[in-house]
């Protein structure tokens, strides 16, 4: 299914099948709608959320962390994250288990919490990335790539196998980052991805999408591999990177 429909369904908390009627709508329009929906949901109840964020300053970080996990849950934590002091947010995040943080990440709008996300210790980010990979939550992984420092992205991607990396690249929020993300990886990784795709037709669409977003330098490294691909994939790949 179109990744933008999956992401919109996630934002609305509905089954993606329900939004099947969006299949023929231009992807960029579905993306615009998702951004409007996200803004609307984050701005709803803003006054109450701001008061809660303010009140959290009165409490020790361990108490805030306990309330976050036991009472607020991932959705409300994600709504408040962009409203709390950065240092306080980081301090609380460090006290929460990766499983919980992964659930918060799934609800978070990375644009609103960049200051916190980029200051969370690398070990915590990697633990969360590992948890998300275990859940096969490629959408959440893909949403964060554009908001993390290169070194964090590189280490996080190292945790993904070829299937995980292809599926994450397919749902990246900013497809212009695909070529840059691949530049962070060893040169051997791209051929590995292409070969993995050859063996699994369900990876063809993500792979062709990835190829479409490569720069000329990396396209040139793929061309010698085309002969190894099944005929149909080879023809489509050739047309994509011609």
């Amino acid at each position, binding site marked *: 299914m179109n990744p933008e429909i999956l992401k919109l369904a996630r934002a609305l908390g509905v089954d993606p099948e*329900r939004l099947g009627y*969006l299949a023929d709508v231009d992807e960029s329009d579905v993306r615009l*709608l998702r951004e409007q929906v996200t803004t609307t949901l984050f701005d709803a*109840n803003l006054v109450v959320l701001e008061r*809660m964020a*303010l009140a959290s300053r*009165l409490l020790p970080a361990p108490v805030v962390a306990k309330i976050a996990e036991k009472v607020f*849950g991932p959705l409300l934590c994600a709504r408040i994250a962009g409203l709390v002091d950065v240092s306080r947010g980081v301090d609380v995040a460090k006290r929460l288990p990766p499983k919980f943080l992964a659930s918060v990440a799934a609800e978070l709008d990375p644009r609103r919490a960049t200051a916190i996300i980029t200051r969370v210790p690398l070990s915590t980010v990697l633990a969360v990335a590992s948890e998300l990979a275990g859940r096969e939550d490629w959408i959440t992984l893909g949403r964060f790539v554009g908001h993390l420092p290169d070194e964090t992205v590189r280490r996080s991607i190292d945790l993904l196998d070829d299937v995980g990396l292809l599926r994450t690249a397919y749902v990246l929020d900013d497809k212009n980052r695909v070529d840059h993300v691949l530049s962070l990886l060893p040169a051997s990784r791209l051929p590995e991805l292409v070969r993995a795709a050859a063996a699994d037709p369900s990876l063809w669409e993500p792979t062709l999408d990835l190829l479409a977003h490569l720069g000329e330098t990396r396209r040139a490294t793929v061309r010698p591999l085309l002969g190894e691909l099944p005929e149909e994939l080879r023809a489509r790949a050739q047309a994509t990177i011609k």
Partner: protein
Amino acid sequence: MAERTLAEQLGGPLPAGIEALPEEHRQDLAAALGDARHRQAKALAQAGEEALKYVPALLRGAVRKAVGL
């Protein structure tokens, strides 16, 4: 009370491809967004009171005041 349309809830014009959808599909999107907002407001109302149980007694008054409970 009539349900708010999708554009009303979003507070602005819809992307062209969404505006061009049949009315029933725009209504479905409006309903899904309305439900999401309702769930969020409900969760927030419940969390406010529940969270106070974890606040040390000495700070409870100040926190109540800050939150406006």
